[in-house]
């Protein structure tokens, strides 16, 4: 984190000194967004795109899917601070069940950010559309071994698509591949996923990314489902990590809570860093997330 903040100060300083490369309207804030914030947001999209079923972790993926023709809409509000940068990210995700074992997933993240320049005291605010994520989820294994018990394995594949919004996009089309495993038994559920993004942007900031998540859900209530108890409250604990091939490594611990009804889910989480070895992108101090999912 220290090295990133030092880099930001250096950028600001160079701007004040009239560095030709940074002295135009594109400036340090745009440079920041193109090479650092865009990557941070890419992580957010990866983390949330496919995780939109009912009993699902909040920041990780799940191997459950909507039924044939089923639609799930998920609206998130995520806030994070990273040094002098504060941002609201508002990803909207729509899932469509093409078949019971094949789901199409599209995520479009809006970004509202505020960047403070400690050298000038100036604060800039802007907003835009970060890169879209299109994923397909294909179930390759299913073992329903009890009324509420299941084990499933799904493959994920898709593309991070440039939004074209200058300052918010990586300006590249990046393939994504991976898999997710879910085990639900009684009041417990366990999810694990591994995703790889081939970053076609090039350069040190455009390194390939490996994202990994592990999540545990415990049904706090009810102790036992019935025909009259069709809502549930889950406690969630996740580890959300990302390793970039340029050496950057970041790991969050993410406690959360999720209230699930038949039609909708409301959930909240806070992500706290427990490992940050970052030289090429911003280190987030924390992330707070709220999410609402509705099933059609």
């Amino acid at each position, binding site marked *: 984190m220290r090295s990133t903040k030092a880099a930001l100060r250096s950028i600001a300083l160079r701007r004040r000194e009239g560095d030709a490369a940074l002295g135009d309207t594109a400036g340090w804030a745009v440079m920041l967004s193109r090479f650092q914030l865009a990557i941070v947001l890419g992580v957010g999209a990866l983390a949330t795109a496919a995780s939109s*079923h*009912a*009993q699902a972790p909040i920041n990780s993926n799940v191997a*459950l*899917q*909507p*039924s*044939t*023709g*089923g*639609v799930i809409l998920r609206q998130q509000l995520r806030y994070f601070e990273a040094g002098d940068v504060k941002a609201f990210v508002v990803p909207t995700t*729509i899932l*469509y*069940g093409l*078949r*019971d*074992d094949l789901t*199409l997933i*599209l995520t*479009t993240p809006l970004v509202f950010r505020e960047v403070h320049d400690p050298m000038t005291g100036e604060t800039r605010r802007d907003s*835009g*559309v970060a890169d*879209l994520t*299109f994923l397909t989820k294909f*179930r390759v294994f*299913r073992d*329903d*071994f*009890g*009324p*509420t*018990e*299941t084990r499933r394995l799904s493959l994920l594949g898709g593309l991070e*698509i*440039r*939004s*074209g*919004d*200058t300052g918010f996009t990586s300006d590249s089309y990046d393939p994504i591949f991976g898999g997710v495993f879910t085990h*639900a038994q009684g009041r417990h*559920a366990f999810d694990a996923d591994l995703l790889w993004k081939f970053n076609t942007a090039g350069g040190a900031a455009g390194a390939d990314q490996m994202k990994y998540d592990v999540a545990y859900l415990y049904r706090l209530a009810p102790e*036992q*489902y*019935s*025909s009259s*108890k*069709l*809502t*549930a409250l889950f406690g969630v604990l996740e580890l959300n990590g990302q390793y970039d091939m340029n050496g950057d490594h970041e790991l969050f611990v993410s406690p959360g809570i999720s209230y*699930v*009804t*038949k*039609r909708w*889910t409301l959930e909240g989480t806070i992500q706290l860093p427990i490992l940050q070895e970052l030289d090429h992108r911003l280190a987030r101090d924390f992330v707070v997330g709220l999410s609402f999912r509705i*099933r*059609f």
Partner: protein
Amino acid sequence: MRIAPASIAMALGIALAACQTTGPPPMRTTGDVTAQPSAAGQTITAQGPTAVLWVKGLACPGCIVNVERQLKAVEGVEHIEVDLGSGRVDIALSAENPASRQQLRDAIDKSGFTLDRIEAP
């Protein structure tokens, strides 16, 4: 703010496909499910025959939507009651045109869960 046309086209395409889908078309019924009273304690009431499906893998309340969506699309299914804890799905069927076992089996397949058995004597 400039947005790539390809991105917009893809977003609209997905949204349109999702909105246009209202479930599979009703299947022709064969009426081979016979009458069975509802289980005690169930709120299901019906003039016609009933059936009980035992479904596995319903991991959460949201899974019920998947099952109900597919069963409601079957012609001859009039009412559905799910007991999530036991995986029991009580169905009231049309007296004139009850759904067949195969239709019910197909509906559970499309919902993404495992049908253990159908009780419809």
